[in-house]
């Protein structure tokens, strides 16, 4: 029972928030009844394929589509020139931004003069089946004149570097400085200074369902665009502009989405090309990204090069950090470039840092454009910071955890203001969290203190085991708002309409739980309608681990308003004072007595009927809308501790133990939270050891199948041990913080810390991700050669473990 103050409606119910309620989403998905983009079938639907650039940089001399057009089953073969009559611009607008118009680095709807990465779309083929469309795409002839490429972002900064696109004056898109405090003084007064150069490689999001677009021409010329996106409203606004459509002539819907992980946060050329072509041809069109297209056209992330210098006092307390960060932006910038800003501002994480200066350079290369992949700049920042912490520990002969402990922000300083600004311009204020306790708990669970003893024993047997750790803080719940409308239906069931976008995380269940508790109904009686611009006029979508915080808060407020309204209406109808009423089991009950009114009945009365009396003092409709506004973030934190065993002759790393502490504030559904953390960790393990999106020097991608680009599978993992703290966020009405990325962010840093620790006898420093076996082997061999006293060679030892 929840007691509530007099001013609030009295609600009597067993709360569902905080319980592992089975997900409302599951039934269709388990039985094959889910409806993902490629499952949508329409009468007379035509299928599309794209001709994509096979070269990383070239001038397009000629596009010959005649042979393709002449093929059986081919409906149309379209270049940018063909689409222009239906477009207001051939160039994409800057996504997720209020800035009107294009910027000089957004992609083109289709390339017609120049291509700047392998995979850039050039021609759209429309045919009666995808098979035929691919046949025809192979027959399109494009004549290219090759142009020089810029493949390494660091080299691409040089004034004499080849330009990524000939329209550019420089490959440097943007340079800025992030910092505060007197860095010079910090270094001048330092007891120790350490420095490192770190690099992190790009990977892909690889949701198991790729992207996809379906443009449906409806009677009356309405255009309905289905897209597997995290951003239906952004697409809606963008398409209005790009296609020059009135708002009522367009609708954007997201069907079931088979995972997002960042890449579906972007708006893509295909999402404009298909609707434009559909309007041109007056036919409904479908395009589904296949896996090879994912590799060469979906957003990738994490190529960054950090040079870091740290100044500490004699007690290993941080005095200052300075350095530079080069961010590889790929060929275009489809959105405002926020990842390096995220990274540069997030570096100091949970630590107290008096002075900071980071020079950031955002540089184009002839590779797939870069935007967010799960973590969005944070994994790199945490990697840089946590590797620096290990460096300090090694340099000063201190325990790695101890160095961190001395620098963590203590709980009594919460809320803690970092001397930095968030992207909204608001001050960066950590709202809550107990970082030292988090670290303590994680270390205790993982047996950190006993480890050196175990490590010594293992080494005596010739086994290289190691332990590592990483802390992370992630700003979640980015605003400015998310929409939430709660409406009671005529049958008493409740619907939530939100602009938040479901992409498999269990959003509907969590929102239903929040709503259910306010209205004293079971969560199963709540449905959630999301990702449909005709049902929800306002919305942002899925990014920055934001949706539960923002949409959840709106739904919470709206549901409470509905509860108040129901009680007010019942008071008027039943002629009983409001304080005599309570909401219980979907009914407003008179507390002393057995009179009650169901929510459905109240909804019927509040819909109004001609000639009938209307309850006094209430507005029509048993519904409420809330757009909870925020400019601040809710900061979640995590501490991961990892144990590994390394086999030096193979360069192989086996993760033998993984302990993750996560604090994402109040957990609406702990089962869902745990699932997010586990999935996130595995993504981070992939970044540390497996996932490598390779390009050769001519910027040809060399990993374009799942045989070459390795995703982590079930056999490569230990059981993941998760621990949860729940420090509520004071910044939102539900106390929650986001959890979608906190599993990923510290994972690579923790794994690499453990690998380095395992190889301590070789004195190896690892400053990169990923470290595939051959790289590790090379590091070990180099260390062996430069080492005077060699550790025992494995070949003299008894047989070791099986692979």
């Amino acid at each position, binding site marked *: 029972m929840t007691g509530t103050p007099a001013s609030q409606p009295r609600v009597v119910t067993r709360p569902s928030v905080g319980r*592992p309620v*089975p*997900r409302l*989403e*599951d*039934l*269709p*998905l*388990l*039985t*094959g*009844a*889910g*409806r*993902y983009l*490629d*499952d949508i*079938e329409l009468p007379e639907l035509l299928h599309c394929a794209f001709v994509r650039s096979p070269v990383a940089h070239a001038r397009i001399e000629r596009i010959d589509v005649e042979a393709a057009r002449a093929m059986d089953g081919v409906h149309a073969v379209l270049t940018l020139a063909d689409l222009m009559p239906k477009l207001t611009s051939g160039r994409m607008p800057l996504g997720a931004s209020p800035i009107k118009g294009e910027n000089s680095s957004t992609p083109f709807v289709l390339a017609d003069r120049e291509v700047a990465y392998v995979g850039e779309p050039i021609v759209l083929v429309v045919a009666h089946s995808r*098979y035929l469309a691919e046949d025809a795409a192979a027959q399109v002839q494009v004549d290219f004149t090759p142009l020089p490429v810029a493949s390494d972002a660091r080299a691409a900064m040089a004034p004499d570097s080849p330009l990524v696109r000939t329209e550019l004056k420089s490959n440097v898109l943007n340079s800025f400085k992030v910092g505060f405090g007197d860095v010079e003084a910090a270094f001048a007064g330092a007891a120790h200074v350490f420095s490192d150069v770190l690099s992190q490689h790009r990977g892909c999001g*690889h*949701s*198991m*369902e790729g992207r996809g677009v379906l443009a449906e021409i409806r009677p009356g010329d309405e255009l309905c665009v289905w897209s597997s996106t995290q951003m239906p409203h952004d697409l809606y606004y963008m398409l209005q502009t790009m296609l020059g459509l009135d708002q009522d002539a367009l609708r954007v819907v997201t069907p*079931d*989405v*088979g*995972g997002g*992980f960042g890449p579906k946060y972007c708006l893509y050329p295909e999402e404009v090309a298909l609707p434009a072509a559909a309007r041109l041809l007056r036919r409904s069109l479908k395009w589904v990204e*296949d*896996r090879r297209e994912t590799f060469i056209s979906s957003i990738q992330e994490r190529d960054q090069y950090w040079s870091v210098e740290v100044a500490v006092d004699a007690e290993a307390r941080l005095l200052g950090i300075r350095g530079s960060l080069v961010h590889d932006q790929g060929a275009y910038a489809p959105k405002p470039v926020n990842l390096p800003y995220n990274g540069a501002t997030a570096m100091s994480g949970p630590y107290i840092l008096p002075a900071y200066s980071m020079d950031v350079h955002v540089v184009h290369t002839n590779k797939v454009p870069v935007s967010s992949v799960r973590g969005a700049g944070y994994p790199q920042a945490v990697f840089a910071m946590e590797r620096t912490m290990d460096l300090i520990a090694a340099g000063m002969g201190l325990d790695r955890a101890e160095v961190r402990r001395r620098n963590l922000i203590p709980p009594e300083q919460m809320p803690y203001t970092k001397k930095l600004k968030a992207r909204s311009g608001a001050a960066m204020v950590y709202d809550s969290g107990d970082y030292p306790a988090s670290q303590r708990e994680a270390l205790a669970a993982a047996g950190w203190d006993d480890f050196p003893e175990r490590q010594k024993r293992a080494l005596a047997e010739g086994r290289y085991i190691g332990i590592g750790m990483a802390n992370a803080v992630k700003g979640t719940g980015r605003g400015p708002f998310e929409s939430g409308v709660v409406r009671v239906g005529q049958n008493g069931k409740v619907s939530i309409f939100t602009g938040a976008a479901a*992409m*498999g*995380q*269990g959003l509907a269940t969590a929102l239903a739980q929040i709503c259910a508790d306010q209205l004293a109904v079971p969560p199963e009686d709540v449905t959630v309608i999301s990702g449909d611009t005709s049902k929800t006029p306002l919305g942002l979508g899925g990014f920055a681990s934001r949706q539960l915080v923002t949409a959840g808060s709106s739904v919470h407020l709206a549901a409470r308003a509905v509860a108040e309204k129901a009680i007010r209406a019942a008071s008027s109808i039943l002629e009983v004072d409001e304080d005599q009423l309570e909401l219980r089991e979907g009914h407003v009950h008179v507390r002393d007595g057995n009179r009650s009114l169901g929510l459905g009945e109240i909804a019927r009365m509040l819909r109004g009927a001609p000639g009938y009396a209307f309850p006094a003092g209430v507005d029509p409709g048993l519904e409420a809308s809330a757009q909870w506004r925020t400019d601040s973030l809710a900061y979640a934190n995590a501490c991961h501790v990892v144990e590994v065993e390394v086999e030096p002759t193979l360069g192989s790393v086996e993760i033998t133990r993984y302990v993750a502490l996560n604090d994402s504030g109040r957990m609406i559904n702990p*089962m*869902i939270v*745990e*699932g997010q953390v*586990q*999935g*996130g*960790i*595995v*993504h981070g393990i992939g970044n540390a050891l497996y996932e490598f999106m390779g390009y050769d020097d001519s910027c040809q991608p060399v990993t374009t*199948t*799942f*045989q070459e680009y390795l*995703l982590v*599978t*079930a*056999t490569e*993992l230990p*059981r*993941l041990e998760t621990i949860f703290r729940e420090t509520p966020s004071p910044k939102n009405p539900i106390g929650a913080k986001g959890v979608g990325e906190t599993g990923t962010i510290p994972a690579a840093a923790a794994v690499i810390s453990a690998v380095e620790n395992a190889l301590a006898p070789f004195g190896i420093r690892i400053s990169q991700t990923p470290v595939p076996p051959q790289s590790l082997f090379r590091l070990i061999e180099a260390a062996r050669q430069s080492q005077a006293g060699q550790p025992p060679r494995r070949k003299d030892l008894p047989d070791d473990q099986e692979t």
Partner: protein
Amino acid sequence: MYEIELLINGRPFRGAAEARTTLADFLRHTLRLTGTHLGCEHGVCGACTVLVDGVSARSCLMLAVQADGAIVETVEGLAEHDGTLHPLQQAFRDAHGLQCGFCTPGMLMTLVELLRETPHPSEDEVRDAISGNICRCTGYQSIVDATLAVAGAAGTEGSEP
């Protein structure tokens, strides 16, 4: 075009397909059984796993014509007609063995085969069985736990159909 007849989930189906049509596309687009998913179309992700004549197969690596006359089982056939979930489906729900659900049909069909062969697998056997199925969402642990829960439950009840 080839006329293809087959038994899917106990019901006869027929349809026409080009020689090159994969079994996956035939199921999904010709027969409209869209529960079987395509995650890679090159035989690595396992999303397209169905049972053909009782054994698991990647339906992106089979031609539809090759399934002529076959007995095929897909995710659509797992639950009872009255909607009662298959124990494995129920366990997935209880243990949060799915998030976006895209890998789920392939996971389920692979594990159905495993549990028919090995009703009480160890954790390692479960992980080995799904080593050819990629899930980007869950980190696999909840899928493993769901499977072990079914195996455990079947054991305690001792009820083998």
